[in-house]
C-alpha cells in the first residue's frame, strides 16, 4: 500500500549520474530549474526536455519508475491546467454558458503543466540518483560559508539526513501497523470523512509511540558514541571533485547558456 510512494526515494543503480559528486547534482538541479523558467519557445522546451531525457538515459533509472512517481502530483497538475484555462482572459476558443476557454488560457495552462512536469521529473531524478547521506553531505559542504554568520550548518544537515532516513522506516512501520489493525477488523477505506478520520486513531497512536521510541533510541545511541555536533568533526569519505564532476559542471553551464541564447534569439 504505502510502499508505492516513490517520490524522493533512492534508486540503486550503477551509472555516471549516480557517481557524480552530490554538490554537482545539487547545483545542476538549481541551474536546471532556472533554465526551465528562462526558456519560452517550443525550441527552448525541446532543448530542456532533450537534456532531461539524456540525463534519465544516463542514470539508467527506468522511465516507468519515474512516471509512477508523478502520479501523486497529477491532481495538482490538472488543477493548474484547468484554472489557467478558465481564468486567463483573451480570445475565446470555446464557450459553454459562463465557462470561457481562451486561447491564451490554453497556452498558459499547458506551458505551466509542462514546466511543472519538467521541474518535478528533474528534481526527482536528483533524489533518485543520490543517497540521502550523500545529499546532505553535499548540502553541508555547499552551505559551509554560512558558518561564518553563525548558521549551524552541520546540525541542520544532520537533522535533514535523520529525517530523510526515517521516511522509509516510518512508512514501513505504518504498513505493518495498518495491516495489524486490519487483521483486527479495522477498516481504513470506507465511510464518510469523519468516520475515516476516526479510523486513523488506531494507526496514528501506535505510529507516534513508535516514532518517539525510535527517536529516543537514536538519541541514546548517538550519545553513547559521544556525538558532539560538527566542531572538529572529520569525514570518513570527504567529498572531492573528480574530472567527471568538472565535465558535468561545464555541461550544465553550457546548457544554461544555450537556453539563454534561445530566449534572446527566438
Amino acid at each position: 500500500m504505502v510502499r508505492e510512494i516513490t517520490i524522493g526515494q533512492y534508486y540503486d543503480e550503477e551509472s555516471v549520474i549516480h557517481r557524480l559528486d552530490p554538490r554537482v547534482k545539487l547545483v545542476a538541479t538549481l541551474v536546471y530549474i532556472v533554465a526551465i523558467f528562462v526558456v519560452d519557445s517550443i525550441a527552448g522546451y525541446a532543448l530542456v526536455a532533450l537534456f532531461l531525457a539524456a540525463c534519465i538515459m544516463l542514470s539508467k533509472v527506468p522511465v516507468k519508475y519515474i512516471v509512477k512517481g508523478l502520479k501523486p502530483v497529477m491532481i495538482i497538475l490538472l488543477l493548474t491546467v484547468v484554472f489557467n484555462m478558465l481564468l486567463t482572459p483573451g480570445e475565446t476558443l470555446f464557450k459553454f454558458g459562463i465557462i470561457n476557454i481562451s486561447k491564451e488560457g490554453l497556452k498558459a495552462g499547458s506551458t505551466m503543466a509542462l514546466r511543472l512536469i519538467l521541474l518535478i521529473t528533474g528534481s526527482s531524478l536528483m533524489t533518485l540518483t543520490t543517497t540521502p547521506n550523500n545529499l546532505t553531505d553535499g548540502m553541508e559542504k555547499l552551505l559551509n560559508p554560512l558558518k561564518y554568520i553563525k548558521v549551524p550548518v552541520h546540525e541542520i544537515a544532520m537533522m535533514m539526513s535523520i529525517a530523510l532516513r526515517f521516511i522509509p522506516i516510518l512508512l514501513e512501520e505504518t504498513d505493518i501497523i495498518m495491516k495489524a489493525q486490519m487483521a483486527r477488523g479495522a477498516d481504513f477505506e470506507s465511510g464518510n470523512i469523519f468516520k475515516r478520520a476516526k479510523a486513523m486513531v488506531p494507526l496514528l497512536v501506535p505510529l507516534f509511540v513508535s516514532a518517539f521510541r525510535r527517536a529516543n533510541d537514536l538519541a541514546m545511541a548517538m550519545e553513547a558514541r559521544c556525538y558532539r555536533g560538527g566542531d572538529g568533526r572529520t569525514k570518513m569519505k570527504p567529498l572531492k571533485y573528480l574530472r567527471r564532476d568538472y565535465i558535468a559542471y561545464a555541461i550544465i553551464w553550457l546548457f544554461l547558456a544555450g537556453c539563454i541564447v534561445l530566449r534572446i534569439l527566438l
Partner: protein
Amino acid sequence: MSMTLEHVNCIYSADTNHSVHALKDICLTIGDGEFIGLIGHTGCGKSTLVQHLNGLISPTDGHIYYNGEDINAKDFNRKELRGNVGLVFQYPEHQLFENDVFADVCFGPKNLGLDKKEVELRAYEALHSVGFPDEEFYSSPFELSGGQKRRVAIAGVLAMKPKILILDEPTAGLDPQGREDILELISDLHRNENMTIILVSHSMDDVADYAERLIVMDHGSILYDDVPQEVFKNVRELERMGLAVPEVTYIMRSLKRNGYEVDDTITKIDDAVEQILKLWSEK
C-alpha cells in the same frame, strides 16, 4: 473448515531492479485443528505467506480458498475472514492504542459488528484466557511490562474468536518464563478449543515441542512439509539453510555416535528422558 493455496506467487516491487520473488508456486492445504510449525531463515517468505492467509496481501498469481471460496474474489467478505483467521503480528504490542487494556481488546470484536454485551464478554474471556490479572483491566496498555503487553495484544486477536490462529514469532524478545507461558497458552487453545494453529518461529525447540506438522521454507518455496521427526532427519540440509534441529536431537545424535542404542530422531525432551532412563536402568 480448511484453507487451500494453489500455485500462489508473490512478487514485491515488480518491474524494478529490486523486485523480490517472495513466494514461488506455493501449494498447501491446512486442515481443521492442525498445529503447524512454520520455520525458515529470515527473509524466506514466512511472514509474506501468513499475510496471504487472511487477505492482507493478494497473491501476484494463484488462488487461495477458504472453505472452497476464493478469498480474493471481489464479493468475498474479507472482514469476516479476518475474524475467522486471526493473525498475531511480530511484536504485536506495538499496535496497542486505546486508553485502557479492556478497550483495546474490545477493538477487534467491535469491528466485527457484534453488540456491546457480546463484545465485552469476549474481551473479558480473552483477557482471562491469557492470564491477565483483573485488577489491571483499566490501566493504560503503555504502562505494562513487555510480557503483559504481548498478552494483551494476543488477547486482542483471541477476542475475535478465530478458527485459525496464526502467530508470527510470538515469543521473540520474551524471557524464558514468558515464552513458556505463551506457548502453553497456544497449546491449550489448540487442545481445548480445537483451534487450528500456525506458529511461525525461529526456534526449533519451540516448534518441536508443540507442532504436529512442520513446514520449512527456503527462498520463497516449501522445502519440507512433514511431521517434525521426519523433517529433523535432514540435519545437514537444515544447517545449510542457517536453521538447526532441536537441542535434544543433537544430544541424541551425539549419544548414538558414541555407541549408545538410542533413537536419534527424537525431537521432544520427554521422549529423550524416557530413552535415557531406560538405557540407565539396563546398565
